[in-house]
């Protein structure tokens, strides 16, 4: 019976699993050896932002909820992680987990308006949250090993560095550690998407009234999407704290509120219907600026010019390939390959080629 197929592992699925494992091994073993410390650091940021983008990818792509507060949640996650690192001696993975849980609680509160709002209104509310964090962060400062609730000291002797896990103190080892945590987050997302929860999200994205009529508790599943996305962003915040070592408010200041908008743009460009879109989004958000600044002096002096490129990129994707670069690029490359092979065959068949 045809339905029996669902129980068997498809050959495509096995091939994909092998390809993904190979890619993961290449990232873990070869990349740190092949690249300089600078590029390893850039790729560590890519892995961290892939997790942040994954949260938004789930929210927007799977449930249809727009959030412009994800970078603010990253700041919250970083703050919580830094405070926990300085306050306790808990192992790194435990701090990451706890940071994820606490950030999820805050993200769930931010997601409460999503129960009544959607689209532009929800985007505005979450952007306002980002604005609030952009004000609160410089006012309270990030914990740097000081005492008290805020854990911030102005003294010149203060300012401890957030510790990294014992097995990942070097930049290369921390990159590997980050990639593994990011891979776990992607597996977590994949498990949700392929489950009852993922199907409930798909129903909500299609139509909320129809989802209700199909028995889906839309209130619970929408809020749960916010909780999960916030958990992931919190974990990313913990990784970010370990990545930068010292957290400063300018990293998440009012001027950086635009990063939440840029994140949405790159997530759209990457592709919201595939989890790989989050990886492409992180490459656009973190690797592309580094490459452009490396290649062109212009981008070094005008880093915000990238926004113009992103604007054009979003327009291109929305008009020609709403499923994003993750689908468009392979398709266009296939078409190009076909065109080239046809052209080569034509040249081979032409009379002049016989001589």
């Amino acid at each position: 019976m045809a339905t029996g197929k669902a129980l068997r592992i498809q050959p495509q699925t096995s091939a994909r699993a092998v390809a993904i494992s190979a890619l993961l091994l290449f990232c873990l073993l070869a990349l740190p050896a092949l690249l300089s410390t600078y590029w390893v650091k850039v790729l560590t940021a890519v892995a961290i932002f892939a997790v942040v983008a994954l949260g938004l990818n789930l929210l927007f792509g799977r449930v249809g909820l727009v959030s412009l507060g994800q970078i603010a949640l990253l700041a919250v996650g970083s703050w919580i992680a830094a405070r926990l690192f300085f306050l306790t001696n808990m192992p790194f993975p435990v701090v990451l987990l706890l940071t994820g849980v606490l950030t999820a609680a805050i993200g769930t509160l931010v997601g409460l308006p999503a129960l009544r709002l959607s689209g532009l209104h929800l985007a505005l509310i979450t952007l306002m949250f980002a604005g609030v964090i952009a004000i609160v962060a410089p006012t309270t400062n990030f914990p740097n090993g000081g005492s008290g609730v805020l854990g911030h000291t102005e003294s010149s002797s203060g300012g401890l560095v957030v510790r990294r896990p014992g097995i990942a103190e070097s930049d290369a080892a921390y990159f590997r550690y980050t990639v593994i945590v990011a891979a776990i987050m992607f597996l977590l997302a994949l498990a949700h998407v392929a489950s009852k929860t993922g199907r409930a999200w798909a129903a909500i994205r299609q139509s909320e009234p129809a989802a209700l009529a199909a028995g889906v508790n839309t209130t619970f599943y929408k809020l749960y999407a916010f909780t999960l996305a916030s958990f992931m962003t919190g974990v990313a915040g913990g990784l970010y704290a370990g990545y930068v070592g010292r957290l400063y408010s300018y990293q998440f200041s009012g001027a950086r509120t635009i990063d939440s908008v840029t994140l949405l743009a790159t997530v759209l460009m990457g592709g919201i219907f595939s989890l790989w879109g989050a990886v492409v989004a992180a490459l656009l958000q973190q690797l592309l600026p580094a490459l452009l600044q490396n290649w062109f002096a212009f981008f070094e002096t005008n880093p915000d010019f990238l926004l113009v490129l992103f604007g054009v990129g979003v327009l291109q994707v929305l008009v020609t390939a709403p499923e994003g670069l993750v689908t468009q690029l392979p398709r266009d490359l296939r078409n190009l390959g076909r065109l080239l092979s046809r052209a080569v065959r034509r040249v081979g068949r032409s009379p002049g080629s016989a001589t």
Partner: protein
Amino acid sequence: MIEVERLTVRFGGVTPLDAVTLTFPEGTCGLIGPNGAGKTTFLNVLSGLVRPVAGSVRAFGEDLLRITDFRRARWGLRRTFQQEQAIQRLSIFDNVGLVQEHCGGSRGSRRRDVERALEFIGLEQLADERVGMLSARHRRLVEVARAVVGEPRVVLLDEPGAGLPDEETEHLGRVIRRIPEAFGALVVLVDHDMSLVSGCCGMTAVLDFGKVIASGPTNEVLRDEHVLRAYLGTEEQV
């Protein structure tokens, strides 16, 4: 049996349902009326998407309006919408399965329930196909499968044949007619296609401007002078 008494819905100054009282006894019942008569609003009240200002709805002895919207599906109330709601990116199996699992169906019986629904509509061989790859006729049948999977008690079908050519509507009608016997559910069919309604429904109620203007055996209702005037647009004699 569904018993509706003095059901009233108001949207500001508009009254799409005005003290509607009717009974759907068993089998497949029709609900017809011109555009804007209040048919979809009526289904929306039953599914909990619209809250009435007055009136009651009892289904198999239970007060339907007291059940939370999404829990009504678990109770056994299912429906389709005028616009297709099957999710294009998911397979037929997952589309039907999501209704089963969210309507209280057990994980153990999921495969059996979904396969039964797919066999009922005759698409069991296409279970793993994505809905987006299907023809309009097959997509409409998937909507029906989503409405009958598990243990439905009341199935509301809102223009299930919209956009289908005549011969495909006939096939859909044959499927709809078998629902009460196959699943023991009461079916309420809303449609503009008179051949579909008369072919499927033993009794039919007619709404016009939010009021019931006729109710009874379908062949009698379709000949009713008020219905012909209101629904089919017969000119009044001067």
